[in-house]
């Protein structure tokens, strides 16, 4: 889409973009380029020059079983939590969009999780899901040891998925609600007059009209599950037990800043960037086709 009427003084036009350009050069492009450079060299932690090693960093990372484990964990986490958060939010938004008594109250409250910091949520859920205190302690009293995210990798993974999905249900709910509300009432009323039922109307009218939002949220949720998960992992599991929840972004942090392996962390960042870009392209290529732009 383009404007027909524009301003001719193009020096002024460029001047308006200068602050943004300076910022993204300094804090985006330069560091991104630096990451590529570091990933190809062996970087001494506290200065002292670096040695060109080509793809050696990538070779040693990809030969490491821990790294593959972290990729698998990230994909499992991304798949399950995105699926849960989108499905639940879609159901809730579709239902609150029906004009029933009380739907306003539901709408107000269901948005709340959006405002909560992932780490704050993580601490709350760490308490709620703690094996010895909180609520699952009751279960543990009945069947000792059945639930222990501190020792059992699957339990730990389940904990971080619950915390992440819970926040993103709130986030997705806002977008779904906005999408449903943007559908003209008259369209649905006309269909109702023609005698189509609620479920029919949902599939034939509302669902096709919100597919752009579904697609948008899918891309955002998957991308965020690779990044926004950091705080949750750090507070709830610190990557444990036995690396079961050592997601890619957490591993970059712990290898880079705790292990002082800058080159290894840079190479991991590059792989994570490529993975996110690939996933995004894949979604645009195969899923966007089914999206219906009004």
């Amino acid at each position, binding site marked *: 889409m383009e404007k027909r009427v524009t301003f001719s003084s193009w020096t002024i036009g460029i001047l*308006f973009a200068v602050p943004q350009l300076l910022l993204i050069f300094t804090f985006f492009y330069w560091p991104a380029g630096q990451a590529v450079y570091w990933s190809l060299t062996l970087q001494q932690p506290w200065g002292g020059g670096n040695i060109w090693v080509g793809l050696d960093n990538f070779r040693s990372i990809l030969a490491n079983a821990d790294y593959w484990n972290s990729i698998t964990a990230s994909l499992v986490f991304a798949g399950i939590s995105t699926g849960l958060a989108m499905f639940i939010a879609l159901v809730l938004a579709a239902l609150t969009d029906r004009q029933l008594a009380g739907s306003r109250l539901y709408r107000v409250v269901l948005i*709340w999780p959006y405002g*909560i910091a992932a780490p704050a*949520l993580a601490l709350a859920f760490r*308490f709620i899901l703690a094996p010895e205190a909180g609520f699952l302690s009751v279960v543990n009293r009945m069947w000792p040891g059945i639930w222990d995210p501190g020792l059992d990798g699957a339990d730990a993974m389940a904990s971080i998925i619950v915390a992440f999905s819970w926040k993103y249900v709130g986030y997705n709910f806002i977008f779904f609600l906005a999408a449903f509300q*943007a559908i003209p009432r008259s369209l649905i009323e006309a269909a109702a007059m023609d005698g189509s039922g*609620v479920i029919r109307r949902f599939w034939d009218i509302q669902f096709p009209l919100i597919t752009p939002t579904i697609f948008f949220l899918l891309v955002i949720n998957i991308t965020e599950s690779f990044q926004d998960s950091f705080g949750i992992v750090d507070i709830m599991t610190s990557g444990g037990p036995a690396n079961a929840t050592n997601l890619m972004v957490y591993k970059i942090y712990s290898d880079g800043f705790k292990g002082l392996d800058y080159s290894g962390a840079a190479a991991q960042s590059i792989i994570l*960037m490529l993975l996110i870009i690939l996933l995004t392209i894949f979604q645009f290529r195969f899923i966007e086709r089914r999206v219906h732009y009004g």
Partner: protein
Amino acid sequence: MVERTPFLNFFTHLILFIGFVFCIAPFLIVAIAASHNLKDVNDVPMSLLPGSDFWVNIKTAWVTADLGPKLLNSFIVAGGVAAGKVIISALTAFSIVYFRFPGRMFMFWLIFITLMLPLEVRIVPTYAVVANVLSPYQAILDLTGLSWLIEKVSGVQVSLNLGLLNSYPGLILPLVATATGTFLYRQFFLTLPDELTEAARMDGAGPLRFFIDVLLPLSRNNMAALGTIMFLWAWNQYLWPLLITTDQSHAMAVTELKQLIPNVGGTPEWHIAMAGTLIIMLPPLLVVVLMQRWIVRGLIATEK
């Protein structure tokens, strides 16, 4: 709606009610746990009736984690990020939509690629840049031979150095450097009719005038939505402030949560931890409650 669907209505209410309970339960549990004493909070099962120690725990958490200054820092950083995004994004979107200049599309893509790669994945080199924010420019001078030239001519050795670790600009600027807001404004500007620009030009208004007197007032909804969303996003940042604030004077509230986790094997002071969590949760929750209508409205406007 015209028809009667008692069965479906019942199910709608049932599912919404379950969703409501799941949504609100963590808040309630945090608040209730924050009101218990050490013994009650560790009871199996924990009592769901509020205890009597709420204010004592709040005070302890406040003092232990030194939350006063940290909340202030969070407000400064979140406010700074929101203001920065609202202003800079508007300027950029104006430039992209309302001008034709060589390289405009290249610039467009240059800016929008930043949406794909958030701070977390380039965290290590970004940290290095913030440690000396002029290092990219020093490197350019070195690579182009300019610093050698300057040294030859003037005898001054160029070494640009400006560290932003443990500073507000260091916390704020890297968070402002993405295109989220620009995209929102662009979508909105594109929906405005060309007649608007024509009329303004007919009245003799230049680009600056048009921007200030026409575009900005029309963008109020977008600004409110963007400002709110960015405030929440910045308030909730964790990894970035965790890294670049090594001294406590610039630490933000959310990063303090880690101090509140009871140590394994230590006294399980969950009541204090939950009191702190409640304090840190509250400001963004208030913002959401107050700005709810604006957030949804701002999003609907961009869908058109």
